[in-house]
């Protein structure tokens, strides 16, 4: 398999007046051709910023450490003018916030055709034709008239589909989709997911799907990476993550899911406790303050990702969830004692 994206020990830091925020804390993974990788995890755990840093789009107070290679070429530290040749053409991103991805004072048509004119050297008429085709594919009614409208005149879901259409226009080799279907109803969502599945199958594009919608992950992804506190807690195939979660956080996440088959219940299960403070993350396991199985080692040693079975890995000291005793053979990093946060 050919890796389209190779990320090694990537870290993202933000400078703020009251200290440094450690948003991403050393993650490594590959995304291969024709493969869809799902990124799930806690809100605020660094999913978006991980890929904003890959795209070179961090806010001014942010910086990236480590490496991210697109087909062997290092992206971290690449000059903007080189990055611009790759962005929007070879690598496209669907932004989580549709207002960030679209320019408010530009008509939809202009925004869409610009990409084609710039990257593909298309003429105006051909670009408009292609943009219209794309809008029809993402099922936007009255497509021709929409080209003349401004983003605020569209519904939330239409804006999201415009962004999807823009990202697909150039047939990217790597598509990073950050919560692409949050504003879409289930029927349109199904069609969008089919479009992405086609992209992956027909053009062998690699897809990264960041989402909270575990149903979508179940339908489209081959691999899943579960994030918490800027680190991967567990990685594996969709089946492994859904049916044999090995990390206490993954298990808690799956238990919090409301199911369609259930009616109005008194209370939904939620993982107790507060999210970690990224300005003062525990040096050892980031989940320690909320974990039912926390023990001595969790506060002293950072658990490293290790295989449970080939291809399925977790970062946790436990032997297994079925037999939750500390596993002395689990690889870990000793952290300085003064860093103990308990």
């Amino acid at each position, binding site marked *: 398999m050919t890796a389209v994206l190779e990320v090694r020990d990537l870290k993202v830091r933000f400078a703020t007046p009251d200290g440094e925020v450690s948003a991403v804390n050393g993650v490594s993974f590959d995304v291969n051709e024709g493969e869809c990788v799902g990124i799930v995890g806690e*809100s605020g755990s660094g999913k978006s910023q991980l890929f904003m840093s890959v795209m070179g789009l961090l806010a001014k107070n942010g910086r990236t450490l480590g490496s991210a290679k697109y087909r062997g070429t290092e992206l971290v530290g690449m000059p903007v003018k080189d990055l611009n040749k790759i962005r929007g053409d070879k690598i496209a991103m669907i932004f989580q916030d549709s*207002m960030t991805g679209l320019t408010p004072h530009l008509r939809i048509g202009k925004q869409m055709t610009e990409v084609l004119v710039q990257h593909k050297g298309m003429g105006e008429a051909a670009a408009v034709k292609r943009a219209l085709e794309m809008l029809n594919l993402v099922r936007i009614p009255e497509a021709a008239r929409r080209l003349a409208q401004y983003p605020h005149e569209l519904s939330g879901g239409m804006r999201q589909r415009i962004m999807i259409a823009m990202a697909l226009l150039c047939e990217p080799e790597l598509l990073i989709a950050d919560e692409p279907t949050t504003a879409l109803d289930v029927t349109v969502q199904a069609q969008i997911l*089919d479009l992405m599945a086609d992209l992956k199958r027909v053009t062998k594009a690699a897809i990264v799907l960041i989402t*909270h919608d575990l149903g979508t992950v*179940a339908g489209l992804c081959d691999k899943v990476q579960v994030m918490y506190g800027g680190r991967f807690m567990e990685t594996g195939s969709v089946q492994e993550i859904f049916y044999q979660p090995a990390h206490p956080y993954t298990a808690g996440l799956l238990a919090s*899911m409301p*199911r*369609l088959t259930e009616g109005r219940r008194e209370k939904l299960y939620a993982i107790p406790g507060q999210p970690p403070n990224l300005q003062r993350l525990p040096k050892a396991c980031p989940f320690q303050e909320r974990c039912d199985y926390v023990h001595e080692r969790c506060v002293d040693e950072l658990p490293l990702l290790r295989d449970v079975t080939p291809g399925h890995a977790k970062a946790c000291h436990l032997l297994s969830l079925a037999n939750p005793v500390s596993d002395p053979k689990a690889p870990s990093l000793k952290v300085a004692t003064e860093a103990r946060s308990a």
Partner: protein
Amino acid sequence: MSKELLRVEGLKVHFPIRTGGILIGQYTPLKAVDGVSFTLNEGETLGIVGESGCGKSTLGRAVLQLIKPTDGKVVFMGSELTGVGAEVIRQKRADMQIVFQDPLASLNPRMTVGDIIGEPLTVFFPKMKAEERKAKVRALMAKVGLLPQMINRYPHEFSGGQCQRIGIARAMILNPKLVICDEPVSALDVSIQAQIVNLLMDLQKEFGLSLLFISHDLSVVRHVSHRVMVLYLGKVMEIAERDAIYEAPLHPYTQALISAVPVPDPDIEKNKQRIVLGGDLPSPMKPPSGCVFRTRCPKASDICAKEVPVLEEKMPGHRVACHHWGIPDAAAVPTVGHH
């Protein structure tokens, strides 16, 4: 049940869209909301679902008079909101709040999070001491899963889901009677989503809070709603008790909607049969004659093109707008495999 809090009658919002040339200046109305009526009781949650672009957000804004309705009536706590002056509406704002669909875009980028969440207090309780206000903001931040230490940060320094929770905290700080939640949990992981949903339900129990809950997530809607309203192209297709909508939907559109819900189970999801809605997407500017759903309806017949189906009570508490309403006939529904 308990007392009526909100009554909406024949509400319409039509946006004028330029269709003629620049000189002719011809406008055609885009009927975003087209004659919607419903009531909401104290302590009740009405779920609102329907296709993207069917008018849910516009409806929510029009109820709060953030958009001026073209026609129809909104009665809140016994007094009419439509056609009254801005000052009267402003007074009512303390009791009716909204959580906007676009979290980041709805927050003022130049204000700190503490000021954003505390703003309603500043407006309605100008004499409140800054310390007291901050304490209230901090307490609410913790309840929605935001670290109170972040109180001095700016919106762009937060993640999508964190911004969404800032919007929720802001809407809740005055303990309003009515909150319109427009996709309030779409950017949250399921655990925080559960925490927020539990919070809303606690507030409802404690203070009799009423909610209009707009969401594409039908599992969440099922969990939080007492009743559910299904919209299509600005019109109500079906409205009923929650269980009736999910277990015995009578409208073909609702039936398709329920069958398309993704299940968080890879084996089921990758092999699932769904009702796929084919057909032409109707234009909100040239809605189909008769039933607006007919271009995509598997049950459509001649009468559907001629007569607008009226929203009528077909079973106790269950209103449907369809000429051929009923439990789906398996043979009439084309099912198409997923991948």
